[in-house]
C-alpha cells in the first residue's frame, strides 16, 4: 500500500499564493469601479431631484435674481441633467473633478478634496488605532478571565462604550477632559506635518469619541472569537504539549482570532467614516466629512460627487486591504 497517503502538495511559496491574488485584485477593482459609477450617478440624480439650489448657497440669501441667473449660466447648471452628468463623467475620466459650485466656489474640487483628505485620514486612522488597541486589551482580558471580575469589568466598559453615541461622547469628553481638566484642546486641528505630537494631542478627543463605540464593538467581537479559539482543539493540544500559557495565548489563540477580528474591523469602517462627519463638525476638524455635509446642504453636486468617490474608494481600499491581510494571515485561503 504504497502511495495511498495522499498526494504531497508543495510547500506554498509566497509567489504561489500571490498568483491568484492579482486576479482577485483585478476583479475587486473592476467591481469597485462599477460601484463607483453607480454611486456617483445615484448621488448626482438624487441631488438634482432634491429641492434647493447651489446658487442660493453660493450667493446667500441676499442674492438677486440676476446674480442667480448669471451663476447658473457660469457653471452650466442650465444644461439638461444628463448632459451635466456626462460632462462630469467625462471630466472624471480625465482626472478632472470639476469646480466647486458653492462650498468653495470656483475652486477645483480635486484640490479641495486633497486639502481636506489628510485631516480625515489622520483622525480616522488615529481613531482606528485607538479602537484597535483598546479593543485588543479589553477583549483579550475579558476572554482570558471569562466569567471573572475582570471579564465583567471589561465587558461593562465595552457595553458602556457602545451605549455612548459619538456626538454625546464628544460632549462628555469636551466638558470632562478638556474644559474640566484642561488636558486636551476642545477644538481645532493641528496638521501632523506641522507637529506630530501636537496633532496627536489635538486629535485625541475626537479620535477617542469616534473610537469608543468602535472599540466596544471590536472588543466584544474579539472576546467572542477568542473564547472560541481558546476552546479549539489546537489550543488544548498546545497545552498538552506543555507549551507556556502566554505563548499559547499569543501564538495559538490570538493569532487565529485575528482573521474574524479583522473582518469585523473592516466592516466597521463605514461607521468610523460616518462618525468622523459629526465629530469633525463638533471639533472643527477641516476634513472631508464636513466638506460632504456642506456639499449636501449647499447642493454643491461636484463636491458631493467627489466626496462620494473618495468615500467609496476608502471603503473599497480598506476592504481589499483587510481581505489581503486576512489572506496573508490565513494560510488556508489565498483570497476569499
Amino acid at each position: 500500500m504504497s502511495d495511498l497517503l495522499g498526494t504531497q502538495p508543495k510547500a506554498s511559496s509566497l509567489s504561489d499564493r500571490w498568483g491568484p491574488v492579482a486576479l482577485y485584485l483585478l476583479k475587486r477593482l473592476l467591481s469597485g469601479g462599477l460601484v463607483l459609477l453607480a454611486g456617483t450617478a445615484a448621488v448626482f440624480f438624487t441631488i438634482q431631484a432634491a429641492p434647493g439650489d447651489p446658487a442660493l448657497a453660493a450667493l446667500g440669501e441676499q442674492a438677486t435674481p440676476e446674480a442667480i441667473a448669471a451663476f447658473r449660466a457660469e457653471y452650466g447648471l442650465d444644461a439638461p441633467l444628463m448632459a451635466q452628468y456626462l460632462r462630469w463623467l467625462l471630466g472624471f475620466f480625465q482626472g478632472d473633478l470639476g469646480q466647486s459650485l458653492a462650498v468653495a466656489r470656483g475652486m477645483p474640487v480635486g484640490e479641495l478634496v486633497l486639502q481636506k483628505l489628510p485631516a480625515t485620514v489622520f483622525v480616522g486612522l488615529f481613531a482606528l488605532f485607538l479602537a484597535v488597541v483598546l479593543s485588543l486589551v479589553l477583549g483579550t482580558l475579558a476572554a482570558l478571565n471569562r466569567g471573572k471580575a475582570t471579564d465583567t469589568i471589561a465587558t461593562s466598559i465595552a457595553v458602556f462604550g457602545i451605549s455612548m453615541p459619538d456626538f454625546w461622547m464628544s460632549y462628555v469628553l469636551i466638558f470632562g477632559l478638556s474644559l474640566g481638566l484642561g488636558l486636551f484642546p476642545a477644538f481645532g486641528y493641528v496638521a501632523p506635518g506641522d507637529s506630530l505630537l501636537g496633532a496627536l494631542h489635538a486629535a485625541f478627543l475626537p479620535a477617542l469619541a469616534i473610537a469608543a463605540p468602535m472599540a466596544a464593538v471590536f472588543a466584544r467581537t474579539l472576546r467572542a472569537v477568542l473564547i472560541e479559539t481558546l476552546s479549539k482543539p489546537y489550543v488544548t493540544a498546545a497545552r498538552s504539549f506543555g507549551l507556556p500559557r502566554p505563548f499559547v495565548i499569543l501564538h495559538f489563540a490570538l493569532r487565529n482570532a485575528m482573521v474574524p477580528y479583522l473582518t469585523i474591523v473592516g466592516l466597521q469602517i463605514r461607521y468610523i467614516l460616518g462618525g468622523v462627519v459629526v465629530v469633525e463638525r463638533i471639533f472643527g476638524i477641516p476634513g472631508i466629512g464636513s466638506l460632504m455635509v456642506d456639499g449636501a446642504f449647499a447642493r454643491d453636486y461636484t463636491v458631493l460627487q467627489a466626496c462620494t468617490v473618495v468615500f467609496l474608494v476608502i471603503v473599497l481600499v480598506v476592504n481589499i486591504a483587510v481581505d489581503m491581510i486576512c489572506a496573508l494571515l490565513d494560510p488556508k485561503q489565498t483570497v476569499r
Partner: protein
Amino acid sequence: MTSFRRFMQNRTGMVGLLIVLIVALAVLIGPALIPYGPEDMDFMAILAPPSLAHPFGTDSFGRDVLSRVLLGGRVSLTISFAAILVAAVLGSWIGILSGYHLGWTDGVLMRIMDLLFAFPSFILAMLLMVLFGFSSVNIIAAIALVYLPIFARIARNTTLLIREEPFIQASRLMGRRPSAIMLTEILPNISAPILVQASVGLAFAIILEAGLSFIGLGVQPPTPSLGGIMSDGREYFSRAPWVLTMSGMAISVALLGINLLGDGLRDLTDPKLRERA
C-alpha cells in the same frame, strides 16, 4: 421553553431585558403619568433647573424635559424599531432570494447591496434626508436603507450555509416549490442570526436617528426625539446643562439595555457559546 429557561440563566440578558422593559414601560405609560404634556410651554419657567416639580428641569420653552425625554424616547424607539423591522424583513427576503437562487439574481441583488454598503452609514442617511426632506417616514426609510445590506448579507450567508443542508435537499427532493422551501424551511432557520443582528442594529439605529436629529435632520418639531432634545440642549448647555445631560443619559440607558439584551440573545442563539456555557 428550554431556550427561555436558558435565557433566564443568562445574567447579562436578564439585566438587559429588565432595563429594556423598564425603558419600554417608561416611554409607553410614563408621559401619561407626568402632569405636564411634552408640548406644554411655561414661559414663567424657562430653563428651570431640575427640581421636584421638574426632575429633569425644563427647556427653553419651559417644557418639562422629563416628559419630553420620555416621549422623545418613544419616538426614537419607534422610528428605530420600524426602520430595523423594514430593513430586516426586506433584507432577509433579498438575502434568501439571493442565496437560494444564486447566479444572476444573486449577482444583481448583491451588487446593489454592495453599493449601499459602500457608503458610510451616517453619510448615506444624511444624504437621503437632505434629498427627500425631513419627516419620520423619511428617517425610517433612510435608516432602513443603511441597514438593508447588512441584513441581506447575513440572510444570504446563512442561507448559503443551510441551502445544502440535508433537510433542504430533502425538501427539494419532495418536489416542493422554491418559494415554499424558502418560506417554511429556510426562513425559520435563519431567523436567529437575523434576530441577533436586529437587536444590535436597533441600538445603532437609535444612535443614527439621534445623530441625524442632532445635526438637525430629524423629526419635525414639536415632536421630540432624543437626538432632537440633545441638539437643543447642546445649544444652551452652559445655561442649562441638564437638558443635554439628562437626554444623553436617557439614550445611554436605553442603549445599554438593548445592547445587554442583544448580548443575551446572541449567547442564546450561538450554538458554540451555548455548548460551553
